[in-house]
Structures are given as C-alpha cells and as structure tokens.
C-alpha cells in the first residue's frame, strides 16, 4: 500500500479541485469541546457561542448531549429554538433513550455514536461486532422515524478492521443514515493513510463522510484536509481546536487552510475569527496562545530584521493573508533580532524620524538592552533609549562645537 509510486499517484489525485459548495462544517465546540477534561460552559455561554457560530457561517452545530439532562438539555433546547440558519445536532449513543432525549430538545439532526474498533468493542463495550451492527441499524431506524438527519459516528474508526468498517458503513447507509462520521479518535492517522482509507469507504459504500480528527500527533488539520481531498464533505471542527486531550481540528485553521492552501473559499466571515476564539478561550478558561495559528495575538507582530524588512516593504513576502482578514492587528516590536529597518520604522511610528546612521548606532544599544532584560522592549523603553542616546550624541556634538 505504501510504495512511493502509489503515494505519488494518490498525492496527484489529491490535487483535484474541490467545489466549496460541497464542503460543510459541523462545529462541535459545544459537545466535544466541552467534553474536554476541565471544561464546562455555562448555558448562557453555550447560547452565545451557538449564535456566534451561526453568524460566522457554520452549517451545523453539535450543541451537546441531550441525554445528560438538566442544564445540558435546557441549553440544547434553547439553541434549537433560536431559529438559527444552521442545523442543530444532538449527540447520542446508539441507544433509543438517548435519541428520545434529542427529540425532546427539538434538534433537526442527531449524531448516533458507537465504536467500530475491536479493541473498543471488546474492552469498552464488552460486546460483539454483530451487536454493534444491530445497534447501528436499530438506532438509525429509530431516529429516522422522527424524520431526523442522521450522522452515524464510527468511533475509533481509524483502529477498526477495514472490512468491518465497510460493513458498518453499509449497515448505516442501508438503514437510511445521511452520513458517516469517520472518527480518528486517538489521532493516529497521517494524511496519506487518511486519504486512502476515506477514499476506500466512499468508493465502495458511497455514503457522505464527515471527518472527525484529533491532534495527538499534530495532524488534526492535515488529516481533515486529506479526508476532504479523498471526497469527504463534512468536517467536525471546534473553535481553537478545543477537545479531549490534544484537541480536535481547529475551525479557524481548517477554514483558512482550505481557503489559502487548497483554494476552497467557503465564504465564511473570517474577520470574526479572533473575537470568536477569544470568547471560547475565555468561556473554556483557557489561554489563547499568542502563537496560535490564524488567531494568535503575536502572528502579525514582527521583531526580527529579516522578516520585518520584508513585511514592511510588502506583506506578501511573509504572509498569505492579512491581519484584518482574521480580526488581528499588525505591530513591530524591538528585540534581540531587530535591526536597522525595524528600528527606523518603529521609532517612526512613535513619532521620531531618525537617520540610517542613527539607527545603525542604536542597533547595538537596543540589542544589549533587550538581552539584559530578557525580553522585547516596551514602547516607553524604546523612547527612553532613543532620547538618552540622542541626548548623548547631541551633547558630544555641542562639545565638539564648543571645542572649536
């Protein structure tokens, strides 16, 4: 399977064009995101996040787990009644009572989840493959009886026997399921493996596929994209990649990667991304790392001479999209790696027009200062540094004059 010629062939096939209209995002920040150890959203937050997701343009929201009851059920009920443009989905085990709870919430779609790997079937469910197939059939039948859109989730699909997974998909399809969620529950696939497996299911069974990927080895986005290239039409994302362990495919990263690397522009309102990420970070009580792809606060902050001098001339030297596209701001700071161009520009923004010669002399002063402070300089420190340098050089000039 992994001969290089075959890989090349696959990779070339993976380059074919994708129609943006065919790709849909099913965001699970409110379900898998909240399921993360330590994360609890208040109901108000859940509702606010649902509204923001709808505004930004996601196609479907996985709003929670109705069978948990209590506040969870109330929140889902409320979200389903907001009259959002997107579809609202409830998450269920492949159990009738779970689906009943979803129906009571008034959602229009359900995810019906059950493990398809032998290790889960044997060690977690302690059942048989036949039992799994029967549960898929019964629960899809049941949900379809309520006229719901049904996604059958093959949990741990990536560790499942391929033949069995095909039977699983066939059972789901024949029972009338609308799509199959391919869960790389442990995040163990790489993009090539993902592509081959997903393509197999689509070619043989012909059912809509949704990608649910995890970031345990840093491949969540790449695997989601691999799935799309293989023909998957849905991706299960979360804001900031919030999710169990290392998290899921981050919504903002996926959307921008599709737009700028694959040329698939789904028309999302990306300028809201930073605000959405900040809100979810706050509600989940997590930091938003300054280096977070797409929305990190430092992404358009430049210090090094090499990058700054390129970007200041033409941002395209180092950027594929603009800071405004994602609701961020551009800034230059001075630190150990700053040089002449950075210093001239930075002091210019602070209201001091300096010569190249002055900048050359300031480089060493600024680098020494930043090394001794072990950080970049604050604007006030830059101004102080410049003023004391200027004072010294003016003084030495007038001393010289006086000497004449």
């Amino acid at each position, binding site marked *: 399977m992994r001969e*290089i010629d075959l*890989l090349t062939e*696959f*990779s*070339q096939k993976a*380059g074919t064009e994708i129609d943006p209209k065919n790709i849909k995002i099913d965001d699970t920040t409110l379900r898998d995101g909240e*399921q993360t*150890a*330590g*994360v*609890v959203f208040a109901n108000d937050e859940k509702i606010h996040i649902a509204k923001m997701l709808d505004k930004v343009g996601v196609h479907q929201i996985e709003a929670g*787990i109705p069978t948990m009851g*209590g506040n*969870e059920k109330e929140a889902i009920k409320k979200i389903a009644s907001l009259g959002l443009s997107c579809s609202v989905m409830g998450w269920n085990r492949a159990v009738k009572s779970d689906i009943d709870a979803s129906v009571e919430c008034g959602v229009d779609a359900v995810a019906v989840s059950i493990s398809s790997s032998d290790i889960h079937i044997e*060690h*977690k469910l302690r059942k048989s493959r036949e039992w799994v197939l029967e549960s898929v059939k019964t629960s899809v039948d049941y949900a379809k009886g309520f006229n719901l859109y049904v996604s059958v989730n093959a949990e741990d699909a990536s560790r499942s026997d391929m033949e069995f997974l095909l039977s699983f998909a066939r059972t789901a399809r024949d029972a009338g399921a609308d799509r199959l969620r391919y869960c790389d529950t*442990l995040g163990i696939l*790489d993009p*090539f493996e993902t*592509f081959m497996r997903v393509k197999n299911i689509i070619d043989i069974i012909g059912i809509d596929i949704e990608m649910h990927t995890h970031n*345990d080895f*840093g491949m*969540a986005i*790449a*695997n989601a*994209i*691999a799935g799309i*290239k293989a023909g998957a039409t849905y991706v299960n994302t979360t804001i900031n*990649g*919030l999710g169990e*362990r290392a998290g899921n*495919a*981050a919504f903002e990263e996926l959307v921008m*990667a599709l737009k700028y*690397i694959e040329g698939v522009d789904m028309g999302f309102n990306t300028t809201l991304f930073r605000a959405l990420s900040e809100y979810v970070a706050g509600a989940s009580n*997590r930091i938003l*790392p300054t*280096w977070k*792809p*797409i929305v990190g606060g*430092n*992404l358009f902050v430049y*210090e*090094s001479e090499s990058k700054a001098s*390129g970007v200041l*001339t*033409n941002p*395209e*030297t*180092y950027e*594929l999209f603009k800071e405004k596209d994602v609701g961020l701001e551009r800034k230059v*700071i001075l630190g*150990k790696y700053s040089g002449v161009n950075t210093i001239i520009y930075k002091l210019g923004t602070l209201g001091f027009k300096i010569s190249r010669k002055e900048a050359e002399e300031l480089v060493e002063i600024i*680098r*020494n200062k*930043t*090394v001794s402070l*072990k*950080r*970049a300089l604050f604007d006030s420190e830059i101004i102080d540094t410049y003023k004391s340098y200027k004072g010294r050089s003016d003084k030495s000039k007038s001393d010289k004059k006086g000497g004449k």
Partner: protein
Amino acid sequence: MAVAKSKRYVNIIDTTLRNGEQTAGVVFSKHEKIRITKMLDEIGIPEIEVGTPSLGIFEREIIKEITEDKFNCRIFVYCEAEPENIKYAARCGAKNVIINISTSDIHLKEKYKKNRTWVINKLRETIRTAKQNDLNFIISAEDATRTDLEFLLKLISIAKKKGAYRFRICDTVSKFDPFQTFLYINTISSAIDFPLEVYNHNDFGMATANGMAAIRGGASSLVVSVGGLGEGTGNAAMEEIVMALRYLENIELGIETSKFREIAEYVARSSSRAIPIWKAIVGTNVFAHESGIHADGVIKNPKNYEVFNPSEVGLTRQLVIGKHSGSHIILHKFKEFDIELTDKQANEILALARALSEDLKRSLFDKELMYIYNEYTKKKESKREEQNPEDKA
C-alpha cells in the same frame, strides 16, 4: 522504493535556540542557552542550531562557550549569506554553519531588490569564505516553496558541487499541505541526488504533518524546535516529530523521550510562555480523562484511548471529575482513596459532583470530591438517625 516501515535513518536538527529565540519577544539568557543545549544533547538530539553570530558580542560569547564544550551532537550556527557573517561564525569556534538566502522571486524583488544572478554570486562568495575557514555548511533556501523549481534545482546542484553538507528547503509561508509537500520533495529528490532537509512553519496547523510528508517524499532531515517555538506560529515541534516518526512511521531515532515534558517546561519558562495544557505530546491534559465514555474506557484498558504510556513522555495519567463524568469513574476514583462505594452511592455522588462542576464551571479537585462525600455521608447518617431514633440509644 518503500518509504515507510523501513529501517531508514532520519535526522532532526533542533532550532529552539536560533529560530525559537527569533520569535518576537523571546530572549534566552546565556545560562539558559547552555542548559538547553545540554538537555537536548543528553536526550540524543543529533544536531542543534545554537545561534546567530552576527547579532553581536553577547551572542558570540554564548556560542563560543557552547562550541568549546564537549557535546555528542553537532553544533550549528546560523548566517545570512554574507562572507562577513561567516567570519563571525569562525571566530566563535563554530565548525558547522547554515548559510541562508531567500530564493523566491517575490523575496528577491521586495526584500533584497536583487535578481537571481545576485543570489548565485552571493552564495558562491559566502561558500568560498566558509571553505577558507574550514567550515561544514548547509545551504538554506528561504521561501523555497515559492521559488521557481528550475532555479531551486540549480542552487541545489551548486551546493552539491561545492561540497555542502545538506540543502535546506524552507516552507516559509506555510504554502503547502502534506500532499503538495510530498510531491514537491519527491520531485526534487528524484531530480537530484543530494541530502534534503525541510523546514516548516505552522501557519495552518500542518507543520508536523508537512515534516512527515517531506520524509515520505525523500527528505532525510527535519528542522524542529521544542514546543514548536519559532517566529509567528512556530515550527514543527520536536516532540511531535519524534513521536510521530516512532508511532506513525515506525522510524526510531533513539531519543530519550521520557525527558520531553521536563525539556518542554524548561524551554517554556525560559521563553516566558506557558505550555498549553492541550499541547500535543507534552500537554498535561493529553492524559487527562473526564467524560464518562473516555474515562470508563481508560479504566478498563488504557489502550482504549491512549496510543502510548504517559511515562514515555514524562507525563502522568489523570482521571478528572466533572460535568461529563460517569459513575464508573466515581467508583474508580474513590477506590484510589480507599473507599468502596455501592453503585447507588456512586450515582448519587455523581449527581452532586456534576451539579457542583456546572456551578463552578470547571472540573473538581480531589479535595472537593471528598467534601462532597463527607457531606453526603453525614446527610445519610442524620437521615438514618431521624428514621431510627432508637439507634442513638
């Protein structure tokens, strides 16, 4: 040629101390740079980029101290292509240099305001100085993925002819996905027989995946940094690449991974950055399980939800009680406290724990769980007393 699952060797070169430090706002002290070099060397990282000699005296002093020390790893310094920079490198005792130059037309036009001939001449000139100083050198093509392929191949053949150690291809703007990376590297490595190294950025969250794809495409080396520390979104994280090679490609680098958490913490503190608790491989939440389904699965058999044992990267497993917990985890957790609960008790305590967790908007500490238990048992006792007052007597 079979790529994966073979016993091929892959090199990694860690740039935490160079491109990592180049991150806006990050400065390592001399002590920290030396400590990080030691840590990386001790766990078996084969090559390390330690700094940029042209920056100034402070940097050259650090580099000198590192090059004078005895390390098993190969120590590299970084130079923009300029003979003067090479002289700085030689003066601080460097034996190996990376010579970097932008090669894409957009960089040539906008950043250097020069043409391709200038690039070739500048490289030749710099290489000459490197050879005069007896330095081993890697040629690094910045923005290689936006460079005209013919021109890039020409530069690689110059590097080869001049006796370079390797050629580095930088995906400076994260232009590629793994399939594109694979095809690109595959095309180059089929056209010219020379060791290739790939440098990725994480702008779209694909640095690690692209690094792995480059290996499949025929690259022999990857540029990595601890925690992915680097300019902008950062680089391919060292710990992710090492573990992905081990578990997804069956390529073993022989690195002592149990120190990963410790090193990640040290670098995080030195760079004044937190390690996100969800950071792949080394985040503390990677082995924390709360939800009923996951925790129950892990209790029954860790393999249900874990690919490797937490101790392999210096972490520990945690079972967290919160909104999504199930009664099994309650039973298990109390067993850890030497308390045997009945199923009924577990369910009742679970309801109380869930309610408190929703109220507090977070998971519960072990102590809080014990408070719940104590109050629960007290209430039960007083209820029993009310019902059977004669028990008191």
